[in-house]
């Protein structure tokens, strides 16, 4: 079997889901407005914090870019399990997933990737338009999303944000497994706590105390926000940037392996009683 036909089912699901997600324009618009609002609040808080005067590891302008990047790529954060799989788990339809002649784990991973990428694209593009292009034009350059530090930084960022998608998607599959195992979407309720606070979405990790930096850098969720954004504005460069990419790749592999093992375990245990 050629590679193409081997990949055919997964690519088809990826494409179908991507085009479906792009249809949810109203949700994207609402999300976009909310994200602008939170972006402004976070920037005001950071500005007040920087006005305090102490030396910080990143400049205010970098911190502001961090916030805009966070708002633009918010949809990449794995807060909850796949909505369709959650419904299927709750209604018992999830057994249907086993009727397809494909690897369920890879299929779920593709669905997660399509979902995250489509959602993030819908929000990142207008966010870039407003924060990076519009703000400087209307004289608010100090509050704008700055361009990447160097060409190399932008290439490394592209690689890093790709790893973010994979990291987030492999983690989403773990959430799917939790939801299927417990038959309720509430099984993934704890996820936002870790994902928000340990990724840097609430407070940029780099601004947290120096003694915690080692742990913060190497825990899995830094790869969702902190690592790619610091690569973007050059705070992580050279070896530090490679270490960041390595941390992202490492945790992606760990989640991938865990997801495969867990999925086969929950699928062997589903009972699907009644009809």
């Amino acid at each position: 079997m050629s590679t193409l036909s081997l990949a055919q089912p997964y690519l088809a699901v990826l494409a179908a889901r991507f085009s479906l997600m792009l249809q949810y324009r109203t949700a994207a618009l609402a999300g976009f407005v909310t994200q602008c609002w939170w972006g402004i609040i976070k920037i005001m808080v950071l500005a007040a914090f920087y006005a305090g005067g102490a030396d910080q590891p990143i400049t205010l302008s970098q911190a502001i870019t961090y916030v805009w990047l966070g708002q633009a790529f918010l949809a990449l954060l794995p807060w909850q399990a796949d909505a369709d799989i959650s419904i299927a788990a709750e209604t018992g339809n999830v057994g249907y997933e086993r009727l397809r002649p494909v690897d369920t784990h890879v299929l779920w991973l593709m669905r997660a990737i399509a979902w995250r990428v489509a959602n993030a694209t819908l929000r990142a593009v207008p966010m870039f338009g407003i924060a990076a292009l519009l703000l400087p034009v209307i004289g608010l350059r100090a509050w704008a999303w700055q361009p990447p530090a160097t060409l190399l930084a932008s290439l490394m960022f592209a690689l890093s944000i790709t790893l973010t998608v994979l990291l987030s998607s492999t983690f989403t599959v773990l959430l799917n497994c939790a939801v299927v195992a417990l038959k309720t979407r509430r099984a993934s309720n704890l996820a936002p706590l870790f994902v928000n606070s340990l990724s840097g979405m609430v407070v940029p990790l780099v601004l947290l105390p120096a003694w915690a930096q080692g742990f913060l850098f190497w825990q899995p969720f830094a790869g969702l926000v902190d690592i790619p954004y610091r690569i973007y504005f050059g705070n992580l460069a050279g070896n530090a940037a490679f270490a960041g990419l390595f941390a992202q790749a490492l945790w992606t592999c760990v989640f991938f392996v865990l997801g495969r093992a867990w999925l086969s375990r929950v699928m062997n245990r589903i009972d699907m009683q009644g009809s």
Partner: protein
Amino acid sequence: MPQILVHDLTKRFHVAVRDPGLAGAFRGLVRRRSREIVALASIGFSLERGELLGLIGPNGAGKSTLIKILSGILRPTSGRCEVDGIVPWIERIAHVARIGVVFGQRTQLWWDLPVIESFELLANIYRVPKAQYSRSLEQLVEMMKIAPVLEVPLRQLSLGQRMRCEIASALLHSPTILFLDEPTIGLDAISKLAVREFVKTLNREHGVTVILTTHDMHDIEALARRVIIIGNGRILTDSNFEAMRDEVRGERRLIVEFAEDVVDIEFCGATLKSREGRTVEFAFDPSRSPAHELIASIAARHEVEDIRVEDAKIEEVIARFYSIHGAAES
């Protein structure tokens, strides 16, 4: 060699139980108890290629569980099961590529997608070659009469339209075995007929092996030559449908609409089955008391508006069968 072989198949589920009331809920926090449910108890049968098997039984009898094991979704607790020499839950991917499954109460098409897009996605998932896909699509669309709804998102379809699309979708990859779990549930008469006609053609002309569960005895009557009745996870009988019906033929029904209020309605050779106002239903055995004699004796004693003679319903026979074996839903 039979296509489907099931031997000594057992499936037990554990369900959580808790004592009633608030105290019970608190006790449940500390100590979880579970109860064992035996969905299938040592089931065994075999099926040849091209057969059409009807599975019937009360709710909770184990029919769906059996279908789910055969289709590779569930693992049995013990026992053997082979389909074309493959153990479904072990070589799952190879197995499911060759079967089609429809669960009448569930949907496998994408809710928000137009039907045709779901079909195309399924064709990709099953790696159906392009030419073969357009051929089976054309055939299925014509047989199921779904051409007008192909562009419509699934959620806007009626149940009947949806079920026809579901069945078509289960056949896009030309499976050699089709599992239908209550395919006619909730359908109107026309859709039921269409589904039955289609399943019949598929089985007789294309040689597809079909296992069908249903509560609708007309489905069985129209389709199945062989019937297995399941109750409490056991096979109660595995027989020819004709034989089962002949058993029923011994009893017929006489429905009389009297033109007057009748008090004494005892007739020799007929037993009273039910009575609603002036309409009374009797059961009788035509070999002992022929219908014309019975009618004559009734008409001689009362003013009669209308009289009809009917065969006993297969449902009643089955219901009697369940109660004899203590299999009725408890």
